[in-house]
């Protein structure tokens, strides 16, 4: 059989397997919060046999190319170093094949990968700064990453999750990230499917006192792909967790995010930016639990839905009696581009103390016709005018920021909108 036939057959198998998994139907999802526990069980997250490797200073620094395991050819081409920075570290997760760590030095390196038996590898960015850890991992095993106290990683770490294996029709990934006191980390998580698949992710973050994490997430399953993702974040005193999720396409994706503000002055900012068309369904559920004094949280959700797309957002804020002085803000907006597109937005507040400042706002509607006419009356074609308005809506969570995160999101949104927006300088 030719490899093309093989991959075709594989694709068909996977699609069949995924559809047999009891994913919530469109009708069920209309009720929201549809049960997915049976699916989670099949993914068997949180395995006992943790295969995590943590290891730093003892090993010699690995400079230039460093790989473990399998052939990278089956991985998506590592086109661009993540966030445009050479030297970024990439953790590649290839279905059930071993995890591979690659330091992006130059594109040529990735061509001559050999399969090897090494089971662990450590990469050090600089002698004095610990960088990333990695392991030979199989699906259903846990990857643990530790950033030691006080260590500020200048470069983003990329976690790339892709593909699915022939042996297992569905795969689960468990990633634990421990960030020590005062440490800084930018993690770019990319869940991008290159074949039909169903996949489940469980990510845990533990932020020590004063730690800072920026978690940028691109979730783009293949057409017809299924993705179930859970993120749980424990934020210590004075620590800050900021996350932006960009989700697009796939048959069904669900993101459950729990933000536990456990230490005094803990801070969490969450933004989800979702694009859905054809038959895509996406569901984002965020819960903030504030249990310590003087915490701050914000949630910002933006969705653009067309065709028969369906996007839901539930933002829950729970402030216990032990968390006076909490501030919690929430804003959700969805643009429906045609009849038949569906959006759902629901804010929930459970407040058990008097001393809080909470706000929320939600709107669902069509593109602003007056704004479109205004833009067109100045000479912009309809498609360009609409693309500008959609872009404005999607980028709103990071408006005014010039951070790498804002540029990262802008690039993804512009790619999504296609050629309608040229050299943007917004």
């Amino acid at each position, binding site marked *: 059989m030719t490899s093309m036939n093989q991959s075709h057959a594989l694709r068909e198998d996977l699609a069949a397997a995924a559809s047999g998994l009891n994913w919530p139907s469109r009708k069920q999802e209309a009720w929201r919060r549809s049960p997915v526990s049976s699916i989670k069980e099949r993914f068997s997250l949180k395995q006992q046999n943790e295969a995590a490797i943590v290891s730093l200073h003892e090993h010699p620094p690995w400079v230039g190319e460093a790989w473990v395991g399998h052939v990278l050819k089956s991985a998506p081409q590592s086109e661009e170093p993540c966030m445009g920075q050479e030297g970024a570290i990439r953790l590649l997760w290839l279905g059930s094949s071993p995890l591979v760590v690659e330091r992006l030095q130059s594109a040529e390196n990735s061509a001559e990968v050999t399969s090897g038996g090494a089971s662990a590898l450590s990469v050090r960015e600089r002698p004095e700064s610990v960088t990333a850890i990695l392991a030979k991992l199989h699906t259903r095993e846990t990857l643990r990453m530790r950033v030691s106290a006080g260590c500020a990683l200048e470069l983003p770490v990329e976690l790339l999750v892709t593909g699915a294996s022939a042996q297992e029709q569905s795969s689960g990934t468990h990633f634990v990230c421990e960030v020590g006191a005062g440490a800084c980390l930018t993690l770019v998580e990319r869940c991008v499917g290159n074949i039909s698949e169903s996949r489940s992710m469980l990510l845990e973050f533990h932020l020590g006192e004063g730690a800072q994490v920026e978690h940028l997430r691109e979730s783009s399953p293949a057409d017809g792909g299924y993705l179930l993702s859970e993120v749980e974040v424990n934020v210590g005193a004075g620590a800050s967790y900021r996350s932006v999720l960009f989700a697009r396409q796939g048959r069904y994706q669900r993101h459950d995010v729990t933000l536990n503000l456990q230490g005094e002055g803990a801070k969490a900012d969450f933004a989800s930016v979702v694009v859905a068309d054809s038959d895509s369904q996406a569901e984002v559920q965020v819960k903030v639990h504030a249990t310590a004094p003087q915490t701050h949280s914000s949630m910002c959700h933006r969705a653009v839905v067309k065709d028969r797309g369906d996007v839901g957002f539930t933002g829950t804020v729970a402030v216990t009696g032990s968390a006076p002085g909490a501030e919690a803000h929430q804003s959700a907006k969805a643009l429906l581009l045609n009849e038949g597109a569906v959006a759902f937005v629901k804010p929930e507040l459970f407040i058990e103390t008097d001393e809080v400042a909470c706000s929320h706002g939600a709107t669902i509607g069509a593109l*602003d*016709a*007056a*704004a479109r*006419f*205004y*833009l*067109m*009356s*100045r*000479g*912009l*074609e*309809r498609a*360009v*005018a609409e693309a*500008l*308005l959609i*872009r*404005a*809506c999607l*980028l*709103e969570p990071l*408006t005014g920021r010039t951070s790498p995160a804002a540029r990262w999101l802008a690039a993804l949104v512009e790619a999504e909108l296609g050629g309608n927006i*040229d050299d*943007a*300088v*917004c």
Partner: protein
Amino acid sequence: MALLEIDNLVASIGETEVLRGLSLKVEAGEVHAIMGPNGAGKSTLSKIIAGHPDYTVKSGDIRLGGETLLNKSPDERAALGVFLGFQDPVEIPGVNNLYFLRTALNAQRRRRGEAEIDAPSFLRLAKDEAARVGLDAGLIKRALNDGFSGGERKRNEMLQLAVLQPKLAILDEIDSGLDIDALAAVAQNAARLRAEGMSFLLVTHYNRLLDAFPPDIVHVLVGGRIVHSGPAALAKELETSGYHAWSQLEVQSGAAQAPSLHV
């Protein structure tokens, strides 16, 4: 051939017939003022010329330079040389003022087969023109009209007009919300653009703007029709006489076919 020719235009929005046989001719380089009571159809006329999709033209024609505009989209009309300065310019957060304006200018130029303007030249042009209408350089870099005051929005309309250089500028109550200095700046800029050959259709309720930027002809629009036209002095007369006489006439002559007329 006149620059703008409107023949017997009948147009409606929903069930309401707003324009009821309106005719108008504007020669290149001329300034026309349109005055009339609230609800007479002045903004409607402006938006219909610019191609607003909510209005239906039932009969009649609008031509620019001899070419009908009726089957053209708003962006095509813009490229042909129509500019509408809105009575209430919308706020568009997340769309950068300058970026939008350059994209618009280049879109028009591409359509006309002209070369695009490069970023540095554009920036110079925009800054010069912004200074002329007294718009703060910081303001023009913000999102389009986002958080702008009423007067700032109107100045921003003038900035766009000066940068886009249309053949016909329709300014719908550009003078409302402007302070005295801004009004003078707007009049001065309009006079300069006119000297370069631009035509104007000014919709206004007051003489302030017309004193500073005198029109060639003043039209009285009542009940969806131009009921009277005259020289610049007509605007002054209207200030004392009001529209009462015209409205009465309109009721008498138009009552049968126009029961929904506002009086």
